[in-house]
């Protein structure tokens, strides 16, 4: 692959402060629930199924309708249309049957929150219970209760393959090389099963949506969403209205991590608003609802068989993934696909057979969560690699360096791997964690260990996932940058502003990101998911700023009789290297310029536009999962952990984490490091604490008291971050995404370090103190 010229930059590559920081530390930043609607505002409350699988026999709303403050009630009859991102398999309100605890059955619209809640309690729903299925492996067996008998009639994306008459909503296959033959040539073969439970994203801001149905038939939806544009099209399709009549306004989001992608509860607000035209209706999930009524991370059962030669070369891999997609798999199906086409992890394996199944169960609905399947599959891959290294008597770092994927090698899906700094990342974290040196534990009852895990992840999205951007100016020469991607905390507005400032030759304080994102006024952005904004939206921003810059230089060149090549923009002024003339942007970006001698006025308002779409992405073959360019690129990285296990309590203390990711180009290095730190801690939280405990589909721990996430006292004191930069051909300044990747290797790195410390392997997350304590007791 061609080497890339390193460009000189002034703003790109520097750690400017976040553009939203001042608003956020003063309490001025507006989140969706902060918007004020005055006494007009009505409140919606959702009646949810207490059963995991049941037929709805009747819904009696008469008593509720008589209650003070109750304005209207909606039921499934109001929302007959199907909704879903890749597979339209759900209704906004359940129609004939409920498939999970928490499935919405009715909605009450009332003048106060209390009245809505009282109304909801007064609705009587009669159910006829149906047998449920709660394990994905059981759900694929013959005779399992069928959760979606109409699967065959659902609309589905062309790259998904549901199997009507079963609970399998997608089956992704890799058939690469002669796997049986390759296993025959292996000296060592390992086989095992790994499990990851459902967990929840736990944004500190719960889902909230406010909808107002205008008298004109237009509907405005204010929502805490990663996907204003996808919500526009999905809700329009489900409700049988024109997408242009749906306007979605997305304010700042108090954390998303995937659960605010696509549509989960927002359609409810819209359906309620239709009953009370002109009045805004707010629906806000309680913390309890947040745990199981939007998306959870899908549980996974992973069966892995892997073989290597005695020299340590991995030759063959066979995996089966059973994804617990839950009651609806409209989004989860694509996680199954992404997991399948990345199923080797960041390794070169010549022969691979993968079957990745997305399976309906009566558990909470699975959906995208930071990593999009990668944390779950790397949980198995990275432990199996460790065990293989041990069996072969090889060092775990050396074994990874020997097998990790390199530029020019063929990936599991048949793409030629692009330039990647993966081995640099591995070496870097090994050095930072002082691999091979063992410090004594801090107390006699503690044991100390080190572990490593590596990762890869490609953005998972359809190939027509597009980005647009625009640049328009103000009279003072400042400009407004239009983007449709959301600011979830990752810093997307800041890096977008940096890119535009870079191209247009102005200081950062001359750029204002046009916010909130509003589908009526903002440029299109598919969704803020897949860690794709810096790369995809960044390409659009760069193009828009370049377009504006060209118009400006052409205009000034024409006026001055110079060629644009001799002109530049510096610090908000157009300058000529040839004639040494200069003119401020404020003099020309709106009102144009006068030609010499005042003969004529030329120019006018400058407006730059840009777009990007990865048109070069190819399909993957249905039978073999092979294609020449099935995904845009892979971001790679590594993490190493040092920890102590308290043998008296089973408690794990993570002492240090070293992390290195190849981001292509860090547009803002401190923001990259902040992503890494946050991802490491979220990964640690999932590895040590988190599981949504389900009993026949019923969540047992949907509160912060019972579902623990990492606090200040659990978080590691030291996270050593390193940024590797191997430029990406299709990225702006060589950048590729990094937000999600940072949590992918943490949990397996911790598991590997725990093994190093106590000599016990655990196949199922999370590694709670209780689990470790019991294992230690059993061993002793």
């Amino acid at each position: 692959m061609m080497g890339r010229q390193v460009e000189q930059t002034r703003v790109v590559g520097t750690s400017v402060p976040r553009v939203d920081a001042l608003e956020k530390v003063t309490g001025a930043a507006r989140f969706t629930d902060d918007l004020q609607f005055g006494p007009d505002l009505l409140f919606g409350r959702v009646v949810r199924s207490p059963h995991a699988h049941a037929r709805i026999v009747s819904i009696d709303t008469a008593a509720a309708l008589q209650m003070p403050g109750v304005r209207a009630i909606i039921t499934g009859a109001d929302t007959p249309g199907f909704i879903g991102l890749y597979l339209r398999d759900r209704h906004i309100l359940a129609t004939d049957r409920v498939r999970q605890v928490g499935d919405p059955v009715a909605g009450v619209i009332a003048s106060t929150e209390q009245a809505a809640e009282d109304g909801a309690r007064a609705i009587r729903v009669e159910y006829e219970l149906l047998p449920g299925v709660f394990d994905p492996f059981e759900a694929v067996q013959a005779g399992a209760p069928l959760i979606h008998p109409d699967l065959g009639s659902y609309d589905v994306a062309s790259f998904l393959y549901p199997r009507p008459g079963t609970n399998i909503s997608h089956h992704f296959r890799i058939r690469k090389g002669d796997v049986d033959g390759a296993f025959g040539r292996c000296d060592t073969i390992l086989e095992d099963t790994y499990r990851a439970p459902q967990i929840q994203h736990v944004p500190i801001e719960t889902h909230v949506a406010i909808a107002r149905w205008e008298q004109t038939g237009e509907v405005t939806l204010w929502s805490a969403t990663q996907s204003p544009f996808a919500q526009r099209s999905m809700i329009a399709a489900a409700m049988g209205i024109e997408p242009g009549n749906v306007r979605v306004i997305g304010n700042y989001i108090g954390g998303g991590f995937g659960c605010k992608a696509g549509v989960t509860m927002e359609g409810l607000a819209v359906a309620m608003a239709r009953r009370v035209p002109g009045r805004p209706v707010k629906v806000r999930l309680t913390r309890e609802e947040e745990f199981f009524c939007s998306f959870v991370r899908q549980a996974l059962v992973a069966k892995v068989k892997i073989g290597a030669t005695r020299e340590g070369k991995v030759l063959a891999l066979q995996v089966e993934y059973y994804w617990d997609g839950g009651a609806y798999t409209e989004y989860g199906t694509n996680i199954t696909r992404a997991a399948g086409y990345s199923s080797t992890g960041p390794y070169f394996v010549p022969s691979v057979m993968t079957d990745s199944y997305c399976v309906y169960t009566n558990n909470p609905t699975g959906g995208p969560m930071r990593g999009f399947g990668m944390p779950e599959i790397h949980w198995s891959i990275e432990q199996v690699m460790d065990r293989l290294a041990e069996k072969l008597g090889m060092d775990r770092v050396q074994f990874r360096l020997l097998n990790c994927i390199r530029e020019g090698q063929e990936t599991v899906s048949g793409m030629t791997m692009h330039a990647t700094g993966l081995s640099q990342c591995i070496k870097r974290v090994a050095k930072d964690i002082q691999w091979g040196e063992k410090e004594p534990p801090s107390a006699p009852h503690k044991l100390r260990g080190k572990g490593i895990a590596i990762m890869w992840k490609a953005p998972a999205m359809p190939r027509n996932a597009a980005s647009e951007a625009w640049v328009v100016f103000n009279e003072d020469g400042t400009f407004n940058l239009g983007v449709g991607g959301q600011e979830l905390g990752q810093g997307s507005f800041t890096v977008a502003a940096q890119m535009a400032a870079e191209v247009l030759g102005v200081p950062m304080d001359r750029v204002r990101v046009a916010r909130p994102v509003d589908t009526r006024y903002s440029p299109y952005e598919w969704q803020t998911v897949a860690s794709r904004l810096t790369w995809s939206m960044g390409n659009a921003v760069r193009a828009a700023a370049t377009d504006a810059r060209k118009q400006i230089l052409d205009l000034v060149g024409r006026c001055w009789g110079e060629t644009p090549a001799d002109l530049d923009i510096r610090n908000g002024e157009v300058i000529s290297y040839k004639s040494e003339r200069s003119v401020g942007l404020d003099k020309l970006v709106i009102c144009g310029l006068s030609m010499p001698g005042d003969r004529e006025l030329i120019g006018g308002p400058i407006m730059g536009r840009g777009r990007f779409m990865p048109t070069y992405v190819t399909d993957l073959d249905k039978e073999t999962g092979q294609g020449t360019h099935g995904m845009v690129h892979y971001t790679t990285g590594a993490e190493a952990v040092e920890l102590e296990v308290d043998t008296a309590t089973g408690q794990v203390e993570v002492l240090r984490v070293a992390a290195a990711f190849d981001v292509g180009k860090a547009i803002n290095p401190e923001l990259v490091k902040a992503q890494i730190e946050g991802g490491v801690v979220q990964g640690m939280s999932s590895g040590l604490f988190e599981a949504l405990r389900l009993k026949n589909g019923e969540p047992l721990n949907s509160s912060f008291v019972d579902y623990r996430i990492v606090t200040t006292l659990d978080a590691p004191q030291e996270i050593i971050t390193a940024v590797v930069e191997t430029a990406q051909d299709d990225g702006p300044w060589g950048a590729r995404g990094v937000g999600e990747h940072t949590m992918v290797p943490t949990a397996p790195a911790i598991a590997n370090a725990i093994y190093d410390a106590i000599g016990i392997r655990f196949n199922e997350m999370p590694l709670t103190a209780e689990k470790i304590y019991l294992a230690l007791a059993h061993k002793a």
Partner: protein
Amino acid sequence: MATHSITLTVNGAKEQVDVASNWTLLQLLRDRLALTGTKNGCSAGECGACTVLLNGEPVNSCLVLAVEADGANVVTVEGLAHDGQLDPLQQAFIDEGAVQCGFCTPGMLLSARALLTRNPHPSEREIRQALVGNLCRCTGYARIVRAVQKAAG
């Protein structure tokens, strides 16, 4: 529901308001006084997003009844800056990159403010202990702890 007339000082301004007896201080601040900087993350005293200072002490305002604040002095995130001058904690949060989505930030700032007022030079351990009730899902906490250390000077 009975209502009560209460008087309290919020960010230095005297307010007289009628509140229902079951209203929380969080509801009063957000829904009546439109001070929406204070966030609601759980309504159950478990996340710290709603932290404000009540007579100088950090409280989860979702657990305090509005009537209990009668006669009290309340400080919210909107009241941290003075005369256009950010509180050193606010500046340190910006400088150290301690803000991501920003939803936990107001509560973090107020818990940290109470700590520094009580203990101007806390150790790292003391900072972590003081902030243990404030959940953050984005940052991993390291930068928040560093920002508090920096503001303490």
